[in-house]
Every structure is written in structure tokens, then in C-alpha cells.
């Protein structure tokens, strides 16, 4: 079965006065129908830019450089997202492609009632007011909110409620793909847990596919089926949650997983150094300056994302056949 969303060679950057600073470099990623794919990485690794690029919401100075993205719907139609004119894209949005933005706290217009903000897009998609209202109420119930919230203004709701309203709005048209960017970052852990459970429930109930962007390995462990680990604008490793958590291949994934606090009072091993900013990505493997297993080749040549067994990819010279055979 073909992937729901097929991303190939996607690059995006920041337009400077003379040149473009690349933030996301040649990302290849398949989002399978019905899965929850987590994209993790440190701040500034380009994961939000990736999400915004998928949604085609980049605003200057952010620019799309190259790549292709194909959205294949169940009914057999497929769309080349990057070539779609804005008007066609609007038809696609919310009906097939929804977004749960970073900073959900401020994502609702403070001067409009929730009802207006949930139903305006439904009405624009051709529903009647009654249908739109009914759908919104149903969507609110999916995230355990009462229908009377429709009458409130955003400032009358708590942070968790606002986040739920956003999720409800995003799923109200039963879209095929939901891109959720840092959806639990501003919330306390209890609310975070509930919301993630609700989101997983929505996936099961609506059969939606969710791409979840986060810096939090805990979120990924709780909700995702597969993980893409991003480092400095590139995918470092891709695999199932179990696979990556049990035996991370890429030294960066190993570092990330090593820095999760565990039960039993073991010392947390942090990663030395800090993530490079897009203005000075190192040559060769972008991780080489922090890598404990660095070899000469890492400084000269960027590793490609290569398959490493069933459903597993890693971009690291250590796992390339000739290096393995030398060792």
C-alpha cells in the first residue's frame, strides 16, 4: 500500500540578503496510512520548519527550496502538495489535511467565540450552519469537552481546554492527515497525558494519520508507532518506537535515549555540546563534532540514510557495509 504522504528531497531555508540558509536538508520521509509518526529532535533541528513546509505555511523569510510531497488519499486521488495553487490547497486543508500548531495557547482568536472559530471553516467547505454545529459538538465530545464551550471566548478557557478545542477543530472534518506541532509543550504532565490519550483515541476512531512533532522522547514513547529522529535539518534515524528505544543505531539517537531519566536513580547521561545552528552546520556528518564514535570519514562526507534491517534506516557511516567489514 502506498504511503499517505511521501516526502522526497524536501529542503527549506531562511532567505537572507544574499543567500539562503538551509534549515531542512533533503528530507525523505514516508508517512504510512493510519500510523502515528513522531518526529523528534532538539530545538532548532528544523522539525517545526518541516511541519510548516508540509502544511505549506512557510512565511518569508522562510522559503521552500526543493523537493516533492505527494498526498495519496483513500479514494485514489493524489495531490502534489508543493505544486498545488493556493486556492486548490485551501480546498484540501481541513478536509484532508489538518494542523495542530505550536503555541496552541494563542492559536484561537481572542475576540471570536469558539463556535465561530470552529464552524467558519466547515461552513466555507459547504456545510450548513446546523451541520457545522453538529460536527463541532461531536468533535468536542471526542476530546471530552462539553458542547456549551462553543459559547465561550478563548480567554474563558484553561490552557488544556484551549488545546483540546484546537484538536477538536482539527479533527472536525475527519481529515486523512493531521500534523501536530509540539502539541503538549505548554501543558502540565497530567493534562499532557490525557491529551495524548485522546489523540490516540481519535486515530483509532477516525482512522486518521498523525504526524507529531516534538522534542519530548516521552511523548513519542507514549503515542507514536514510528519515530524519525532529526538532527541539524536531516533525518538521522528512522524506525519503530520499540526498535529505536531498545537499540538505537545512530549515536545521536543513543545520546537522546541515554538522556531520558529512568527509574532506579541511574545517572542521566547528557549529550555533550549543543546542536549547531543552521548558519554553521558542520561539513560532513553534521553530528561529527559531538559524536563519541567519530571516524575520519565523518568529517569529510555526509552519510546517506540507508536501510538497516526491517523498517529501519540510519544515516551514519558506522553502519555502512565497508566500514562494518573493516572493523
Amino acid at each position, binding site marked *: 500500500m502506498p504511503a499517505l504522504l511521501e516526502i522526497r528531497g524536501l529542503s527549506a531555508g531562511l532567505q537572507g540578503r544574499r543567500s539562503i540558509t538551509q534549515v531542512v536538508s533533503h528530507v525523505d520521509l514516508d508517512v504510512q496510512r493510519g500510523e502515528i509518526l513522531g518526529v523528534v529532535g532538539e530545538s532548532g533541528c528544523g522539525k517545526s520548519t518541516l511541519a510548516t513546509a508540509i502544511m505549506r505555511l512557510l512565511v518569508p523569510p522562510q522559503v521552500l527550496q526543493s523537493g516533492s510531497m505527494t498526498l495519496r488519499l483513500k479514494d485514489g486521488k493524489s495531490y502534489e502538495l508543493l505544486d498545488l495553487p493556493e486556492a486548490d490547497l485551501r480546498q484540501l486543508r*481541513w478536509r484532508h489535511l489538518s494542523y495542530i500548531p505550536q503555541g496552541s495557547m494563542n492559536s484561537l482568536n*481572542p475576540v471570536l467565540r469558539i463556535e465561530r472559530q470552529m464552524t467558519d471553516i466547515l461552513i466555507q467547505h459547504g456545510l450548513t450552519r446546523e451541520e457545522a454545529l453538529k460536527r463541532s459538538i461531536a468533535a468536542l465530545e471526542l476530546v471530552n469537552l462539553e458542547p456549551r464551550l462553543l459559547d465561550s471566548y478563548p480567554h474563558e478557557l484553561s490552557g488544556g481546554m484551549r488545546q483540546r478545542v484546537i484538536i477538536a477543530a482539527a479533527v472536525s472534518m475527519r481529515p486523512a492527515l493531521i500534523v501536530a506541532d509540539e502539541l503538549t509543550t505548554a501543558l502540565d504532565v497530567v493534562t499532557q497525558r490525557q491529551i495524548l490519550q485522546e489523540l490516540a483515541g481519535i486515530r483509532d476512531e477516525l482512522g486518521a494519520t498523525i504526524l507529531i512533532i516534538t522534542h519530548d522522547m516521552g511523548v513519542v514513547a507514549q503515542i507514536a508507532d514510528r519515530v524519525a529522529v532529526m538532527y541539524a535539518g536531516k533525518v538521522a534515524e528512522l524506525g519503530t518506537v520499540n526498535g529505536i528505544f531498545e537499540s538505537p543505531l545512530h549515536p545521536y539517537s543513543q545520546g537522546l535515549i541515554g538522556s531520558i531519566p529512568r527509574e532506579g536513580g541511574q545517572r542521566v547521561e547528557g549529550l555533550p555540546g549543543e546542536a549547531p545552528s543552521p548558519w554553521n552546520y558542520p561539513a560532513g556528518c553534521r553530528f561529527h563534532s559531538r559524536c563519541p564514535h567519530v571516524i575520519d570519514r565523518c568529517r569529510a562526507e555526509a552519510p546517506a540514510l540507508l536501510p538497516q534491517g526491517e523498517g529501519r534506516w540510519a544515516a551514519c557511516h558506522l553502519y555502512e557495509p565497508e566500514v562494518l567489514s573493516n572493523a
Partner: protein
Amino acid sequence: MTAKIEARAGESAAEGRDAGRREVLQYALRRFGVYLFTLWAAITVAFFVFRLVPGDPMNILLGNLTRAEGRQRDKAAEEALIAHYREIFGMDDPLPLQYVNYLRKAVLGGLDLGPSFVEYPAQTKDLVFRRMPWTIGIFTTSVLLAWLVGTVLGALIGWLQRSRLSQLAVVISTLLQITPVYLVALGLIIYVGYTWRILPAGGPYARHLQPEWTWEFISSLLTHAILPMLSNMIVIGAGFTLGMRALMISVLGEDYLTFARAKGLSPFTVLKDYAFRNALIPQVTALAIIVGATLNGTFIIEVLFQLPGLGTLFVQAMGLRDFNTMQAVVLFSIFAVLTLTLIVDLALPLLDPRIRRTA
């Protein structure tokens, strides 16, 4: 089950609306209280400031008169005259008593602000009321028009912030905004009024006409109003345009705008419901503030275009040290600014639901 939920929802919504109405009423009452207090404080300050100005108006006024008539100064007669008038104007009473009398007459005596010194026994109130329509007609209308034009223009410039045209518009607006209003007025008078002779540039209407309900008079009135209104509008409108542009740009960076775009709403809906509506709130407040701050500019315009408004009245009164009249004009300005601010304050909760809570 669903019906039950909906019924419950209906009830609590009604409760919420009642509570909301109470909040709005409380807000309005509080605003009105603040309004009355500010008005009183302003009147009081105005009263004492004028009384604290050194020099006795009667002395200056009558001294000028006798000197002007070229008579030999008769000290005793002059002093008797001054004493007589001081008594008429109640200027020999102690200051607190004068103040109480002034307030009492102003509030209970139907806005009796005392007679004018110069045009005695004409009431200053009548002088002000006779001039007021000119000032309101020219000044208030031009500010409102400038606000409408500036708000729409600024919203568009902000929305299209990256286009060449809107960058050019910003430069032009900035230049216009920093130009003093009298320079614009003088430029219009010189070029439009005299060099090119397109529009009349002086007086309220053509000199040979009498105020009456004829088309000739009304059209003369309107053509004479264009230049003074235009000078006011250019400068103030440029300010409103820049203000609205800045507000739009800051709103365009908000998360809720990204979300609205992500939803796939049409650009017009995003502009109307998400950007313009939110940027409008501070812009409405700005209207009240600008109205207050630009009264001075209007005085200059009235003098330049020889309009019989409050500005010219004030300038005349100042030259003759007619403190009662000056005070009446100042009082009127304070009253107008405060009332406009009150109206804007009362209108804000309609635009911004957050104000209903926090005020």
C-alpha cells in the same frame, strides 16, 4: 441523551449571557463614574490655572482701553472703573468662594459660565455655542473621515506588507505625518487656493451670501470646507494609516493567524475576521486620543482659513485677555475630548470580549 445535553447547554449559556450583561452594565457604570470625576477635576484645574496667571485682566483690559483712547490718565477714575467691573465679575471674592460660585452656576445655572469680559454682557456660553458648529463640522468630521480612510488604507498596507506599493505608501505616509499641519494648510492655501484657484481658501462661505437653506449657500459652504478639512485629514489620516499598518503587522504575526490560514479559510475571511477585527481594537482607542491631541491643530487651521470656530474665538480672547471666554473654550474642549473617550470606552467591550471581564 443528546437532547438533554443540549438543553443543559442552553440553560448554562443563558446564565452566562446574563452574567455577561451584568458585567457590561457594571463596566459602563464604572466608566461613567470615572468620566464625571475626570470632568470635575479638569474643570477645577482649568479654573485655578487661569486665576493663577499673574496680572489682573480688568487692569490690563481697562488700562488698554483708556490708553487707546489717548486720554490723560485719570488714576482715580480708572481705579473706580476697575473696581466696578471687578465687582460685576465677582473678582473680589476669595478664590475658594469664586470657585464654588463658578461650579454652582455652571452645574445648576444651566451651564452659566459667566459673561464675556470683552463682549459684556454677552454670555460666554452663547459665544461658544455660536462657534461650536464650525469646529464640529470641520474638525470632528475631518478626524472621523481621516480615521475611516486611514484605518482601511493602513489595514491594506499592512496586509500587503511585502509589496512595493505598500512600502512606497509607508514612506509617503511617514513624510505626511511628520509635516506640521499648518505647513500642509499653507501649501494648500497658496497652491490650490491662490496659484491654481481651484477651491476657495478663506472664510466659511462666499462673502456675498447669507446663511440660508439654498443650494447656492450650501455648495459654497461645502467648497469652502474642503481645504481646511483636507489639511486636517492629510496629516491625521497619515498617522492613522501608519498606526493601523503597525497593528496589522503585529496581528499578522500572531499564532491565531497562522491557524486561520492553516484551516484553509479564504484570504478575505482571514483578513476580515482574524486580522482586521483584532487590529481594530487599539485603533478605536487611538481615535479618542488623537481627537484630543489634534484640537490644537484645528485652532491653527481655523485661524489660517478664517473660520469662525472655537479656535479663532480663543485666539481673539487670548489677545484681549478675556479669561472667562478662554475658560469656556477650554472647558468645551475638555468636555468634548472626555465625552469622546467615554463613547469609545463604552464601545470597546463590543469589540473585545476580554475587556468585559477585566475592567
